[in-house]
C-alpha cells in the first residue's frame, strides 16, 4: 500500500475556495435586501430633499392604500383563474401526447414555442392581434357574426380580464404541458394497465395511481407558475398598462408605477417587503400543504 503524502492540506482551504462565491452572493443578494429594508423606513421619494427616518410611516400607509389592496386582488384573480386552467389544459395536452403518434416530436416542439417568447413581446403581439382597427381577431369574429365586430378587448371592462387570461394561458400552458408530459411518461404503465383490467375507470385510475405518481412534479409546476403569476407584469403592461383605469393593475405594475413613475422610493420598498412577507407565508404554507417538505 502506498504511503499517504506527508503534506496535510489546510482544513480551512475548502472555505477559502467558496468564499468569493459567498461574498458575491451576499453582495448582490443580501446587501440590496438590507439596504431596501433601511430605505423602507426613510422618506426618500426622489423629488424631495427630506430623506429623514420615517419609522413605520410607510408601512402604516400600506394599510390605507386602497389601490395597493385592489392591485393585490387583481393579482389573486388572475392567479386563481389562470393557474387551474393552465394546469387542466397542460394535463389534457400531456395526456394527448402521451401515446406515440406520427410527428409527435414536431408537434411538441411547436407547442412549446410560446413559452420561449419574451412575455413583453407576446403581450405586444396580442395587443396587435386584439386591435379593433387592424387586428385579425375581430376580423375573424366578424366572419362568423356576418357583420363587423367592434370588441375593445383592452378597454371594455368585461373583456379585458378574459383577454389577459387568454394570453397568459396561451403562453404558459405549454410549460405545464412539458413538465406534466415528462411526469406522465414516467408513470409505471403496468399499474394503470392492471387497474384497467380490474375494471377501474379512467378517473379512478388517475386519482389513485397516476396523480400520486406525478404529484411531486405537478406540485413544483404549480408552485413555479403560481409565483410567476403573482409577479405577472409584462403581458399586462403590453396589453393594458393596468387599465382601463387601474382595473388590471397587478401588484407588480403598481409597484413599478410607484417606484419608477411616481418616484416613491421608500414607499415602494415597503410594498416590496409586504410582497416578500405575503409570498414567504404563502409559499411556506403551500410547500407544507403539498407535502414537498418531506
Amino acid at each position: 500500500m502506498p504511503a499517504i503524502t506527508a503534506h496535510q492540506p489546510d482544513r480551512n482551504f475548502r472555505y477559502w475556495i467558496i468564499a468569493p462565491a459567498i461574498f458575491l452572493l451576499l453582495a448582490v443578494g443580501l446587501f440590496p435586501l438590507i439596504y431596501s429594508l433601511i430605505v423602507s423606513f426613510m422618506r426618500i421619494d426622489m423629488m424631495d430633499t427630506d430623506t429623514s427616518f420615517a419609522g413605520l410611516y410607510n408601512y402604516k400607509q400600506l394599510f390605507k392604500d386602497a389601490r395597493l389592496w385592489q392591485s393585490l386582488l387583481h393579482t389573486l384573480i388572475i392567479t386563481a383563474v389562470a393557474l387551474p386552467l393552465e394546469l387542466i389544459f397542460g394535463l389534457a395536452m400531456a395526456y394527448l401526447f402521451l401515446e406515440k403518434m406520427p410527428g409527435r416530436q414536431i408537434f411538441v416542439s411547436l407547442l412549446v414555442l410560446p413559452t420561449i417568447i419574451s412575455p413583453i413581446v407576446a403581450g405586444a403581439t396580442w395587443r396587435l392581434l386584439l386591435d379593433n382597427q387592424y387586428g385579425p381577431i375581430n376580423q375573424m369574429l366578424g366572419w362568423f357574426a356576418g357583420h363587423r365586430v367592434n370588441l375593445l378587448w383592452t378597454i371594455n371592462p368585461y373583456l379585458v380580464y378574459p383577454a389577459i387570461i387568454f394570453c397568459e394561458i396561451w403562453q404558459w400552458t405549454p410549460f405545464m404541458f412539458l413538465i406534466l408530459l415528462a411526469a406522465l411518461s414516467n408513470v409505471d404503465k403496468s399499474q394503470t394497465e392492471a387497474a384497467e383490467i380490474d375494471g377501474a375507470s379512467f378517473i379512478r385510475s388517475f386519482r389513485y395511481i397516476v396523480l400520486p405518481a406525478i404529484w411531486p412534479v405537478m406540485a413544483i409546476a404549480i408552485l413555479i407558475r403560481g409565483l410567476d403569476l403573482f409577479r405577472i407584469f409584462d403581458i399586462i403592461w403590453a396589453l393594458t398598462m393596468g387599465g382601463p383605469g387601474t382595473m388590471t393593475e397587478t401588484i407588480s405594475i403598481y409597484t413599478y408605477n410607484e417606484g419608477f413613475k411616481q418616484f416613491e422610493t421608500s414607499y415602494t420598498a415597503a410594498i416590496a417587503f409586504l410582497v416578500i412577507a405575503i409570498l414567504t407565508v404563502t409559499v411556506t404554507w403551500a410547500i407544507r400543504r403539498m407535502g414537498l417538505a418531506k
Partner: protein
Amino acid sequence: MVTRRDVGKIGLSAGLAGSTSFAARQAAAADAAQTAVDAAKKYSGQTISIVWEAGLQALDPLHFSGPKWKELTGMDVKVIEVATADMFTKIMQDYKSGAGAYDALNVIPSWMPDLVNAGALEDLDPYVDKYGYRDELQKIAPTFRDNQMMVNGKIYGFPDDGDIFVLYFRKDIFADPAVQAAFKAKTGKDLAVPKTWAEFDVTGAALTDILKDKGQYGAGFFRQPPYAMFMFQERFRNEGGKFFDADTMKATINSDIGVKVLTDTRAENAWMPPGVEQWGFVENLAAFLQGQTAMTISWPPYGRWAAGYGTDQEALNWVPKTQIAGKVGYAMTPGGHPELAAGFCLSISSTSKNKDAAYLFIQWLNSEAISMERVQLPYTLRDPFRDSQYVSAEYLSRWPDAKDYLATLQEGAQNGLLDLSILQTDKYEEVLRQMISKLWAGDDPKAIADAAAADWDAITEKIGVDKQKAAYANWASKSGAYPKM
C-alpha cells in the same frame, strides 16, 4: 427635399428671402450659430451626450445636426434615445445617482419646475451671457419664450419645439354643395368649421350621418389616455374650467364643467369611427390621411404629412400615403385656445462634466439659423417656434397651403394654453390619464371626476398645500395658463 447646407449658406439664403429687417435678423442669427461653432472648436475630439425622444425626433441629431456639428467643430454627439414616458425618470435617475451620463437634455416644459427644484438642471443664464445668446432668445415666439424658458426667473431651457394642437378639416367636404345642403336640411344651419365644442358636436354628428354611406365620419381623435389627457386639459379650460380653487388649492376638475367635458367627450365616440377609444397617434393619422375622417385634432406634423411634404423619405415610409393632399384646411381647435401640448426645451444636466461644450451645442441647435433648418426637416417632428419660422419664404414655399398652415400655427402660438405645470406635475397628469381610461371603460363621468379630484387633493396634501399653492399661483399668472374670456 431638405438639403444640408453649411451654417453660412443657411443664414444667407434665409436672410435673402425676406425684407431688409428680416435679412438683418438672419445675419444676427447666423452670428449666434457661428459664435457657438467658433467657441466649440476648442473641444474638438470630445464627445457630448444628449437625451432625445426616441424615434423620429432623434433622427434630427442622428442624421442632421449631430453630423453637421461634428463637421463644424470636430465634436462627437452621442444621442441617447429614450421613450417619452421614460425621459423624466431617466433624467432624474442620472441626476440622483450623480453618474453624469447625460450632458444635454430634451425636457418637456411642464417638467421643468420639478427638475429645477430637484437640482437636475443647470442655470443657463451665465452661458447665455457668455456666448451672447440673449438677443436671439427674444426672437422665440412669445408664448414659448415667456412661459417655457424660465423657472424662478432663471433660464433653464431653450424652447425648441412649437408643439400645438391644430384642428385639421377637409376643405373639399366643407365646400361640397351636396354636403352643405344635406347639413342645412339636417341642422338648419350653414356648414362651417366649428369654433366651439357645442358647434363641433353638432357638425361632427351631422357629417357622420351625411357621409357614413361613403365610409366617412365627421371626426376622429386620438383617444388613448396620454393624448386624450392633453385634450381634456385644453377643452376643460376652453369651456371655462379651472384646475384648482386658487385660495384653498382644492381640485375643481370635478366641477360641472369638468363633468360636462367628460360626458360630451364620451358621447362623441358614438358618431366617431368604431373603436376610436383605442386610437393613438398613428391610428388617428392613418384614418385622416386615408380620408376616413372629415376633422381631427393633432400636433403640427399631421398637416405636413397630409400635404405629402417629405413623406417620400425613407424615415417616413410608415406614414400612410396621403389621399387628401391639397384638401386639408387648418383652424384653431374649438374654443380658440389650442393646447401647447408637451413640446421640448433644450437644457443642460447639472451633473454634466462637459457643460460648456454641451451648452454650445444646444445654443447652435436652437439658434435662428439652425433651428430654421431643423423645423423644416420633415421627419423629425420639430415644429416652428420662432417668429421668423412662421414667415420663412422657404417654408412658405414647401407646399401650396403652407401659408395657411404656418399662419394657423402662429395664431395658435399666440392663443395657446400651457400644459399644467406645478410641483410633481406628472402625478396630477397620471390621475388625468387614469380618469380618461375609466371614461372609456364606461364609468360614470361624475364619479370619475370626483375620484380624480380626490386624488389630486391627496397629492396636493402630500406635497404641501402652501408649497403647491405658490407653484400654482406662479403658473396661473402666466399668459397661457387660462384663456382670457
